[in-house]
């Protein structure tokens, strides 16, 4: 052991110990400031962090009161979280990867907006229009570089000189071809970032329908997700998830979903089991308005929707399955239907229940309500059925629509 310079080893070890100690006791404020500036820069909006607790020895980072402000609406937060706990995977650091053993998010809230095309997005159209997808500093630097190039006398001379007739005959100077440096490609592709376990508890999603109707909160959300990575196809485990929450404020409606998304070995297999119960139809109808006006014309006054089923995709092909759908306490008075569905305008039902087993398969439109009706997989119990008939219409073959639909 005479080849080791022990005093140097001792000094280095001491410096490392002091570094660990200093980071543990004084690094929180530095990390907090860096986190805020980094987040604000990357997201191009105000990113605020409350308290930070960092432990190098136990390799965790605990952050409280995270707020990301909406760039489109001043003063309104886009995302908030009371507690976020991250525990790093130290071994992955030595492999030049960013790995997290687990992340726990508690009491987080986010707003999800429905666009006019029916997509759900985090940022409103206003915010998206305002948001420069290029961070400000980069944009300024790019503009400055462009401006500097435009007024660069050498660049101007290079542009003007050929027009003066001096260098026209001379062949244009081509830069010497420089072959790029050889780099050995990575042998086995691995994700640069991975998160083994994400858990959420008591989170809230505020779903805002297009058109300005009241938002629908999904609250009490809890669940987990495993196998998240920046390169799912090269990761060693599939993405699995499970979530449970309540839909609507002050209701007993709940939703649950669990599944597995497997991108490994070049195939995409997705399996999702879902169930929801007693969802108020009136609260979800504003979301359906973007896709179809049919439900608007039904003028649903009351009713709850429940469903459960499995959606499975093998190599992105929908596998056949059945979805159980049940509507209870449906009260509706149809109005505004035209042409062949005009007969529906005379329909009014109340306190009606309807149970359907809807087939799901790979042929569009995937959900086959018509097949369910043909195969008579429908059970209904209608109460207070009302069909208003105007006797003057009797001569105009008003039942044409009903006859065409072969409803008996």
């Amino acid at each position, binding site marked *: 052991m005479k080849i080791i310079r022990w005093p140097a080893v001792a000094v280095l070890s001491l410096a490392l110990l002091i570094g660990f100690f200093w980071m543990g006791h004084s690094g929180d404020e530095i990390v907090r400031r860096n986190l805020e500036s980094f987040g604000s820069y990357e997201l191009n909006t105000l990113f605020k962090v409350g308290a930070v607790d960092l432990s190098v020895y136990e390799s965790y980072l605990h952050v409280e009161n995270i707020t990301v402000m909406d760039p489109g609406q001043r003063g309104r937060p886009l995302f908030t979280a009371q507690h976020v706990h991250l525990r790093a995977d130290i071994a992955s650091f030595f492999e030049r990867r960013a790995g997290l053993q687990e992340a726990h998010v508690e009491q987080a809230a986010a707003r999800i907006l429905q666009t006019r095309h029916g997509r759900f997005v985090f940022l409103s159209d206003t915010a998206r229009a305002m948001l420069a997808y290029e961070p400000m500093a980069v944009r300024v630097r790019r503009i400055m570089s462009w401006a500097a190039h435009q007024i660069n006398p050498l660049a101007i001379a290079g542009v003007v000189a050929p027009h003066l007739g001096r260098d026209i005959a001379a062949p244009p100077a081509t830069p010497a071809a420089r072959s790029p440096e050889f780099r*050995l490609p990575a042998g086995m592709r691995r994700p640069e970032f991975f998160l083994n376990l994400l858990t959420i508890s008591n989170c809230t999603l505020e779903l805002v329908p297009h058109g300005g109707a009241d938002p629908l909160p999904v609250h009490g959300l809890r669940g987990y997700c495993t196998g998240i990575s920046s390169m799912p196809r090269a990761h060693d485990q599939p993405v699995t998830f499970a979530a449970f929450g309540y839909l609507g404020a002050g209701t007993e409606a709940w939703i649950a979903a669990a599944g597995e998304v497997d991108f490994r070995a070049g195939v995409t297999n997705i399996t999702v089991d879902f169930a929801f119960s007693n969802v108020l139809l009136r609260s979800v109808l504003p979301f359906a308005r973007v896709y179809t006006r049919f439900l608007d014309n039904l003028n649903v006054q009351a009713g709850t929707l429940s469903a459960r089923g499995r959606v499975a995709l093998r190599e992105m092909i929908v596998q056949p399955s059945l979805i159980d759908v049940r509507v209870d306490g449906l009260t509706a008075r149809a109005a505004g239907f035209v042409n062949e569905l005009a007969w529906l305008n005379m329909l009014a039902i109340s306190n009606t229940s309807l149970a359907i087993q809807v087939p799901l398969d790979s042929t569009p439109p995937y959900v086959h309500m018509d097949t369910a009706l043909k195969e008579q997989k429908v059970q209904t119990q209608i109460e207070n059925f009302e069909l208003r008939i105007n006797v003057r219409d009797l001569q105009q073959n008003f039942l044409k629509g009903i006859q065409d639909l072969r409803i008996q």
Partner: protein
Amino acid sequence: MLFRGLTAPRCAASIFCGVVLACLPTASPLWLLAALLIILTRTHIPAVLLAWCAGSLLAVPLSACYTQAGEAVLRAHTAFWSAIFQLPVICYLELHRARVMGSVVCGAIAGAAAAVASLLAFFFWRLRHPVRTEAL
């Protein structure tokens, strides 16, 4: 004074380290690792510094060969190097770049040559100046 306690193997090892350090890309992870190892092992620091200065001069003509040498080494055993470069810590050293690998190879060859030359010089100097032992 500066070269007190300098033995032939220690001098050779220090010269080797100094020349290698001079050839490596300055302040790169590999350079920092080499510098750390030099400090932590019982090399002769003045000899290392002297070899570093000499190696820096030597690196000027040598640097033209780095890319070619590195590429030849990397292409010779692609699968082997790919597996090696994914090992923990080694992945930080950027040895997958032909220029870095070439600097290591050329530096090691030049350092070994300088170390052997120093050993020979030490040997011949000792032949002319033998150590006088006290008569028992």
